[in-house]
């Protein structure tokens, strides 16, 4: 009797675990992107209290983390870096960041091209 009970118990336990897994599957929390500090750095930018160099440092450091983890860079991340480099007059790096944004997200092409074109114009004047 006792030996017959054991497997049944195990079965019930396994069933319960599988069922809980199926239930929690509904609210799966795996994200599409690895966000790191992107949104809080955008907020820092808007507040304008911390130096741009420090913001770049944070974002570049987090970018390494994302790359190391093989994660997906969120939309706008490289564009934000481009904006920061541009505000420091580091135009080569700005162009590079805008082009990376465009390569990762072809949806951004219209806007990135608009910005790159404007940057070129300013550079010529």
């Amino acid at each position, binding site marked *: 009797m006792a030996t017959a009970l054991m497997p049944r118990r195990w079965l019930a*336990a396994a069933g*319960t675990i599988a069922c809980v897994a199926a239930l929690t599957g509904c609210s799966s929390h795996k994200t599409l992107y690895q966000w790191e500090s992107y949104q809080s750095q*955008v907020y820092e930018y808007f507040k304008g209290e911390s130096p741009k160099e420090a913001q770049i440092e944070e974002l570049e450091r987090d970018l390494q983390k994302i790359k190391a983890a093989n994660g997906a860079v969120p939309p706008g991340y490289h564009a934000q870096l481009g904006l920061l480099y541009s505000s420091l007059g580091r135009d080569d790096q700005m162009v590079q960041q805008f082009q990376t944004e465009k390569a990762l997200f072809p949806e951004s092409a*219209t806007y990135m091209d608009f*910005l790159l074109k404007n940057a070129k114009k300013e550079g010529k004047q």
Partner: protein
Amino acid sequence: MMMRLLRLCAGLLIATLAAGCAQTKTVDYSAFKQSRPRTIVVLPPLNESPDVKATYGMLSQVTYPLAEAGYYVVPVALMDETFRLNGLTTPGDIHQVSPQKLREIFGADAALYVTVSQYGTSYMVFSSATVVTAGAKLVDLKSGATLWTGSASASSEEGNVNAGGLIGMLISAAVHQIVSSVQDDAAYPVAGIAGQRLLSAGRNSGLLYGPRSPKYGTD
């Protein structure tokens, strides 16, 4: 014991499957489905609250839920800077920009117009609550049609059931006072929760999933 658990869980599972993971929807999504936006530009939110930080606190929190829902979100700080360079510095002015112009500059399929009605901490006798409330309207930039509207709220006091009697309430009020006065940005994390409630896909009456989500087309 285990069998009872299993039975309970199986019952719940059946109920969940029957109801579907996403709850029943009562909103008319036909215009949304026809439009199939890929790129969304979120304009700086209008602020109806007394706190000047509301516009940019909220704007900093919208990219996460929209991108996780599967949309490309026009980079928010860069967008704000583009408006600034063109002499548009207030959300009111920016909300007047024509849909054609928004499409032309940002390459966006749809624009999200957000209004923040509550943002900040109100102090009461025994407690203080930080509340953020916002509403939003998604508009197709080609047809001008409204694709979706929604609103959401979040509070720092949610689930904060006070069981400590009068003394407990006094202590809690004191602690909150300190925390709130130290944290000038108390509303910012609350705005994050409100933003997720407002703009996550797969919620009742919420946004539909976008093309970058594996769940695109399933709702």
